[in-house]
């Protein structure tokens, strides 16, 4: 049997060069014996080739004929649909992209292939400062939905969510989707790595993104405010021992310090919506931090510790 690459290349060439849609019968006869003669086997082989080309990024267009060939399908490929438009990138711009990839996603095969398409090469060594980007299969799909303003749905915390994704944001090492949650009728933030299903896009709808001054501002800077467990923020008072005081003050900011004790310890006040995150943060300091208020959250924290003592 002839090499399949040969048949695919010939099919691609034929459908690119044709000036009118071709029927499968015409395609098979132009390709002289490369497709099986029997109708069903021929159709199956052609469908497989179509799928392979789509996998590469080339879609075969089709239309149904009318008139004396009514019901028959015609096929062609529109060159502008799959060719890279001329981006007019200069050599130093391509090199800058290569360095950016080396500093953030070293050894990325996808990035290397993207650079080849732009006329560059992959590899190279990042500079003295780097940032490792987490990789998640849902990200490219979400980016495309954000850019084309298509709603998405996915499973999150056990429930299906229908969301207009306004933005995709990387902060503190995690990717978040920010958008309008139709099931909650409100703005919500979701951690992309917590999405429990594949992301499905509804390409038939184009939503309006509100005129936000900045998406960045939509994501709370305080991680204790992320997640939607509680409506409305409460305030926690936490006593921090002197030896950790400088670390905490640098993390939360001096304006959160409510009291400074003579022994060098501090009392800080921080808003939270997520009690799990708050408990986790406080316990991270072991006995160098004590949650003072709210009293009922303090009691639950004590119970939490009693249960594992």
């Amino acid at each position, binding site marked *: 049997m002839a090499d399949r690459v040969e048949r695919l290349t010939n099919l691609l060439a034929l459908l690119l060069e044709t000036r009118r849609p071709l029927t499968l019968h015409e395609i098979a006869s132009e390709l002289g014996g490369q497709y099986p003669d029997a109708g069903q086997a021929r159709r199956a082989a052609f469908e497989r080739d179509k799928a392979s080309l789509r996998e590469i*990024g080339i879609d075969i267009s089709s239309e149904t004929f009318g008139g004396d060939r009514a019901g028959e399908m015609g096929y062609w490929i529109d060159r502008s649909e799959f060719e890279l438009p001329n981006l007019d990138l200069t050599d130093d*711009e*391509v090199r800058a992209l290569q360095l950016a990839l080396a500093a953030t996603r070293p050894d990325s095969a996808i990035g290397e292939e993207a650079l080849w398409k732009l006329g560059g090469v992959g590899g190279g060594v990042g500079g003295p400062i780097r940032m490792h980007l987490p990789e998640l299969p849902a990200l490219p*799909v979400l980016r495309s939905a954000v850019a084309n*303003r298509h709603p998405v749905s996915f499973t999150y915390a056990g429930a299906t969510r229908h969301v207009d994704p306004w*933005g995709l944001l*990387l902060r503190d090492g995690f990717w978040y989707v920010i958008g309008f949650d139709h099931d909650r009728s409100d703005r919500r933030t979701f951690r992309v790595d917590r999405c429990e299903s594949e992301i499905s896009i509804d390409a038939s709808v184009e939503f309006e993104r509100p005129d936000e001054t900045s998406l960045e501002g939509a994501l709370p800077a305080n991680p204790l405010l992320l997640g939607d467990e509680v409506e409305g923020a409460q305030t926690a008072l936490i006593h921090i021992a002197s030896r950790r005081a400088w670390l905490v003050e640098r993390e939360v900011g001096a304006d959160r310090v409510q009291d400074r004790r003579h022994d060098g310890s501090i009392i800080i006040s921080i808003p939270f919506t997520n009690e799990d995150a708050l408990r986790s943060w406080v316990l991270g300091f072991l006995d160098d931090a004590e949650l003072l208020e709210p009293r009922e959250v303090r009691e639950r924290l004590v119970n939490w510790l009693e249960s594992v003592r």
Partner: protein
Amino acid sequence: MAQRPATERLRRLLIILPWLMEQGEVPVEEAARRFSIGVDDLIRDLELVSMCGLPPYVDEMVDVFIDEGMIFVGVPRLFTRPLRLSEVEAFELLAAGRAAMQLPGADPDGALARGLRKIAVGLGEDDTGLLVVNPTPPVVQALTEAVENGHRVEVRYQSSTSAEPALRQIEPFVVFSSQGNWYVHAHDVGSGGLRTFRVDRIESLSVVGNAENEPPSSMPEPGRWFADADIERVTLRIGPRGKWVYERYPVDEVSVADAGGWVTVRLAVTSQQWLARLLLRLGDSVEVVEPSTMKSVRAEAAAQVLRRYADG
């Protein structure tokens, strides 16, 4: 030898051909190296497409021939432009570029910024919705300058095991951000070895002289720089609410979840105090499997913290 799949070969050819057409002639070796493909594979695939064609252009569709280690390309007819960037590739470039723009020293009007703008325009999409926010503490800038200038610095560093910050001298090689934290990989003068330090635990920093040690030939792998150091390992059973542990920390192994969603995880323990913090945060969503010496860590830590609450 296993044949590469037809789609993979064609995809690679459609990337290579436009480049070859622009070059006109190029050594086979150079083309193979550039596109990470074997010389024999490249020759075979190029010879194959050069024979492709349809009446009336049989053999003329792709005018390529190979002679004495050189590839010659004639007048291009087809496949003159590379394929569009796929969704995955577009994300890779834009996210990497936006992230690099957040690093100290990035020029908002420089080549990277211009390149990113051209790609966004070329995609024909509204690309303002993809953002990377990575605050860089001032110490990061100072450490980066130390790397660039080859300086040895003295830092006041709070290690996770000692009570008070202590002075130590380091020669930084690379500063990096991973999973929300900044780290510096450096030669530690006191211990004479390579160490990775958390930047947020550096209280202050000053330059003390020139570095005397060469940077290592390889830098730490993303997210797992301490994976192969001889650090003690612990095996834990973690419940569904503790998923964040193996999402966040580099782990050696994660088992398949059982019916209740519990998994067995093996991970590196940098210090017993680190493990104590982790176990308390997990509460009853964790059990220590081994070593047996670590089994009492959670209860002891809980008792220690409870003493503080009893006084309050």
